[in-house]
């Protein structure tokens, strides 16, 4: 069964719809990557899943349950987690407090999850009592991803995790994404570094004007001359 399934999703912020029928399906073991030009509705698709904009028609199912227009405090306990592109850490709080906030919806003991996140991001452990606002861009991204993992998600939504990072960090972040996926978390991410991201994606979605243009495995999309010409810069 699909972990998440968007079927002909139409939605926007109240005015004209931004999404005009998006179809996305991800299995639990997948890394799905959404690419496309600016204003294609990539980030908006993630926000639609996370209840941050109004879905007017179509269905979104998570593990078979309909979740259109459900709010984050209901979605996080179900097993969804979202890392926004910008302002994705609590700058005035310590790294450890940031991670604790990710576990807000959990009433059980999350010490083992915390240990797992520290294991995955040693720099975060090193700076756990430092304020997240004092960290570098790459380290902040680690705190942000760590925060999202604290709720023990089944699906992690990442909005341009590599934005604004130096090439060295981009590779590191992508490697981390693959590692998280290997640990049993489905991934759906939006990426500007399209060619790099599609290279390790098991599913790729090319959006334009709020609709799917091409859908396939990452390798298929890279190999498709039309996708390469129009969306991957030749």
């Amino acid at each position: 069964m699909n972990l998440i399934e968007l079927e002909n999703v139409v939605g926007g912020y109240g005015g004209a719809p931004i999404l005009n029928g998006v179809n996305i399906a991800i299995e639990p073991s997948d890394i799905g990557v959404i690419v496309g030009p600016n204003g294609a509705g990539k980030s908006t698709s993630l926000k639609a899943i996370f209840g941050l904009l109004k879905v007017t028609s179509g269905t979104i199912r998570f593990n078979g349950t309909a979740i259109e227009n459900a709010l984050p405090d209901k979605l996080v306990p179900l097993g969804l987690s979202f890392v926004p592109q910008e302002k994705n850490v609590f700058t005035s709080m310590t790294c450890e407090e940031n991670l604790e906030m990710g576990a807000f919806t959990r009433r059980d003991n999350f010490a083992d999850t915390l240990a797992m996140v520290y294991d995955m991001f040693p720099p975060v452990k090193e700076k756990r009592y430092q304020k997240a606002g004092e960290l570098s861009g790459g380290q902040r991204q680690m705190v942000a991803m760590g925060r999202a993992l604290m709720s023990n998600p089944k699906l992690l939504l990442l909005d341009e995790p590599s934005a604004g990072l130096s090439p060295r960090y981009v590779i590191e972040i992508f490697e981390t994404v693959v590692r998280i996926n290997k640990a049993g978390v489905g991934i759906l991410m939006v990426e500007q570094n399209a060619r790099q991201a599609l290279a390790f994606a098991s599913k790729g979605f090319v959006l334009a004007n709020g609709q799917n243009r091409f859908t396939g495995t990452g390798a298929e999309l890279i190999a498709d001359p039309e996708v390469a010409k129009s969306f991957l810069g030749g």
Partner: protein
Amino acid sequence: MDQLIFFINKVLVAGTVLGSIYALGAIGVTLIFGILRFAHFAHGDMMTMGGFIAFVLAALCAAAGISGPVPTGFIVLPVAMALTAIIALGLDKAFYAPLRKRGAKPVTLLIASIGVTLMIQGLIRLFFGVSTRSFFETEPKKILRFDMSWLGGSRPITFTQPELLMVIVTIVICYALHLFLSRSRLGKAMRAMSDNADLAQVSGINTALVVRVTWIIAGALACCAGTMLALDVSLTPDLAFNIVLPIFAAAIVGGLGQAYGAIAGGFLIGFAETLAVFDWSVLLRPFQQWLPFEITGTISLVPTEYKLTVAFVILVIVLLARPTGIFKGAAT
């Protein structure tokens, strides 16, 4: 030595008491701003209302013959704080929550809170009239004197029992608030929402619950500050309306959204106001021979009537040096 004792009696005691009141009021203002992003102008009147609730409870206690080793105002304080917190929740539900739901701008909420100000003041006048009341009509204000003759002072250090209790209550409340914000899950969530409301929502934090907790804390502290102000001076319908501006100044000086900043700002402005109107002539008289001028009457930096402006002078100076306040608060 006598000059020092005079200074302690006039400045240290008065400044600490005024600072405590400002700090407790400013914490509420700053928390509400941090979570809901608007200047809650009716905060002063929530303080006055809290003072009146405590007054009514104290009167009921007196009628029932209940009294204790401390002024009745302090005995009823926990109950009054709880009642004011409930009313604060009600005010939010009735006036601010519907506006937020419709996506109102901060300025709309500000104007609404001015409306709430007028409403509360009107209701208080309707029920209690405009007369000045005192918590100490039926019981005496105990005065504590500490003999300083062992240090060569001829006068004692003097303050009243309510003044001492106010400072103790403020310290206890500030410490409890510190523990809440730094240790508890909900307190951390409150700081998180104040820091970045969108991310708090995305993290699954129950933002509606955080808003309710904010009103409960702000209401309870407003009641405490209002009652303390009424115990310190007297109770009138415009009691705290007159000090809402210095309270806002304290919150801004400390850094909007920063609870610790509000405490610091409250004491800074409380002491600054007290020092500014303090009569320096007594302290300076022993040094008359070295002074280039004759000490005749009283010497204070500003006349008492201008006390209120001191808060704004401090505000301007601090903001020139640190545009977002001492503790780096929100810029908007």
